[in-house]
């Protein structure tokens, strides 16, 4: 049994309050994104939110990578009337896991998504129609490329941490491999260096459900009926993989929804509570998610393999000097602990600093998103980040003869090679040794 002493937080104490999604257009001509599939793509609109304040030294920025169907709205509420807060509200805020009193937290919607960042549902400027399946094939690497560009646009050379769970954790690993000098620490939750065959299998069923929906119409459904049955079915299947045997048993058991007795009616779809729940999840998902995005993003997830083109996972991680925190959950069978431990092994082989915990939870893969599990996760992540920041600041303390690291660096976008000004460059060499 866990013996963590974490004070309980009431739902609204420690919230970031009102938040707002902002957008910026990146990869404008003549500098499009070259995707992994070899397509030059741009401009790309990126939707993002930020919480907390960037320090004068710009050393306290944390980038949050969302999972498959997440969005930029990670914390707070968009209006006081909003019933729902951001998807990681219990984890981001004053005194929470990502403490916005100390850190500047950024979260952005992924490329190919459907919640503000350019994706298949947006208008292709060349045709005036939604991209649909003309959207370029995209990978986790492409997603990270776009987010790295956003971070540079915000004037941040080096993130204190990149953090994410599931597909978000894959992005964290990709950051460390692709932009090794852009992060000081990496927090990978319920994730893996590649998706297991079992994971690919479930994604395949989801995609098949979508493309075989009569309304799919080769992805051109935006001005008519949408493939909502297919998308809902995809979500229902996927949702099962996010739960555990124990959590389904606990939450629903064999209980019936409306009666104590069987109806002996084949077509009654919501007789068991678990049936009713899955149908509800499917229905709600269709309201907020685009089927084409689901196809693109699950495929990106299937393709993801950190070792691909880099030798081994250890080779992929060799260039970064980031510290790693790897967390898995006991009942997660989609991204099992064994895959996290493979990562740990590879990181140790690459001689990296790595911390690993398997947390006890009945909630399966979903655990890193479940409110009641967040205090436990916070108790791990908070000291990890605090000591990361401490060690950065210790290394950049003013020397007796030295400059003043407390002074604000010159504002504006740094040059691509990281040399913004003499002052910045002097400070950087100290930090990056």
């Amino acid at each position: 049994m866990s013996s963590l002493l974490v004070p309980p937080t009431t739902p609204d104490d420690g919230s970031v309050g009102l938040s707002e999604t902002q957008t910026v257009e990146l990869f404008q001509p003549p500098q499009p994104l070259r995707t992994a599939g070899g397509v030059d793509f741009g401009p790309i609109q990126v939707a993002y939110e930020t919480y907390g304040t960037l320090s004068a030294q710009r050393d306290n920025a944390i980038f949050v990578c969302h999972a498959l169907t997440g969005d930029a709205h990670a914390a707070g509420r968009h209006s006081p009337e909003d019933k729902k807060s951001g998807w990681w509200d219990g984890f981001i805020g004053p005194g929470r896991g990502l403490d916005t009193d100390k850190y500047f937290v950024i979260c952005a919607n992924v490329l190919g998504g459907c919640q503000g960042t350019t994706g298949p549902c947006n208008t292709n400027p060349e045709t005036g129609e939604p991209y649909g399946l003309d959207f370029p094939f995209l990978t986790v690497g492409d997603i990270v490329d776009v987010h790295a560009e956003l971070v540079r646009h915000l004037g941040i050379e080096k993130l204190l941490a990149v953090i994410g769970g599931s597909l978000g954790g894959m992005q964290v690993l990709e950051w460390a491999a692709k932009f090794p000098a852009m992060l000081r620490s990496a927090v990978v939750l319920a994730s893996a260096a590649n998706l297991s065959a079992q994971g690919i299998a479930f994604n395949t069923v989801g995609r098949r459900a979508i493309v075989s929906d009569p309304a799919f119409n080769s992805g051109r459904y935006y001005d008519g009926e949408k493939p909502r049955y297919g998308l809902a079915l995809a979500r229902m299947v996927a949702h099962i993989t996010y739960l555990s045997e124990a959590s389904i048993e606990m939450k629903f058991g064999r209980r019936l929804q409306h009666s104590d007795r069987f109806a002996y009616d084949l077509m009654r779809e919501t007789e068991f509570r678990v049936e009713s729940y899955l149908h509800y999840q499917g229905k709600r998902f269709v309201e907020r998610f685009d089927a084409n995005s689901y196809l693109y993003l699950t495929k990106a997830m299937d393709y993801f393999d950190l070792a691909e083109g880099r030798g081994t996972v250890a080779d992929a991680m060799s260039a970064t000097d980031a510290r790693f925190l790897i967390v898995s959950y006991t009942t997660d069978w989609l991204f099992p602990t064994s895959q996290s431990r493979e990562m740990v092994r590879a990181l140790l082989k690459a001689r990296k600093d790595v911390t690993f915990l398997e947390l006890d939870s009945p909630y399966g893969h979903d655990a890193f998103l479940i409110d009641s599990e967040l205090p436990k996760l916070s108790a791990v992540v908070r000291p990890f980040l605090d000591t990361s920041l401490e060690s950065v600041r210790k290394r950049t303390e003013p020397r007796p003869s030295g400059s003043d690291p407390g002074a604000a660096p010159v504002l504006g976008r740094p040059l691509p090679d990281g040399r913004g000004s003499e002052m910045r460059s002097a400070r950087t060499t100290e930090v990056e040794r």
Partner: protein
Amino acid sequence: MKRPKEAFADSASLAIDRLLMEQIAPGSRVVDLGCGVGRLPAMLADRHGCRVLGIELDEAAVLEAIGRGVSVLKLDLDDGLPDLPDDSFDFAVLSQTLQQVKHPKRVLEEMRRIAPRALVTVPNFGHWKIRAQVAIYGRAPVTHSLPYEWYETPNLHVVSMRDFRDLATRLRFRIVKELPILNGVAVDRAWAANLRADSALYLLERA
């Protein structure tokens, strides 16, 4: 259930930590098996510039170690250490933990695999007070350095200095140093050490 490291009085365990530090060259890569709250690895990192990793099973202790800036893996030593590559460290430390694992021999074998040098401290159940309690009173021993009743002790194995020497040799370790610890103080050599030492520190190398 008390945490493993509380099996010993704090001042005594601090003294042992200091003693261990003296054996480890600055800048070494060190893994501390059963690191508890990470006091030793934190000191090694801060004062000796060592690259450190802790292994600990107790979650609360792991969190405290993280708070000290120590990288730590929450793992059970009794499952072996398959995550740690061969020769990935200069030193493997096992301090006051050997008697608490289920398979001490296996843990020592793993230490030999992951580092060329091992530092092990073991409580000495050959101490005369312990022998006296068993022999004269017919009681399972409870002493200042081993303060547990038999039914709640975390110490699964009873081992004396002589016993440990035998096992180390059998596992093809060379005993480079054996420092008996008497009343919290390490001595280079002691008359009838196996009778008088509370515990002992061993520096081992692959033979």
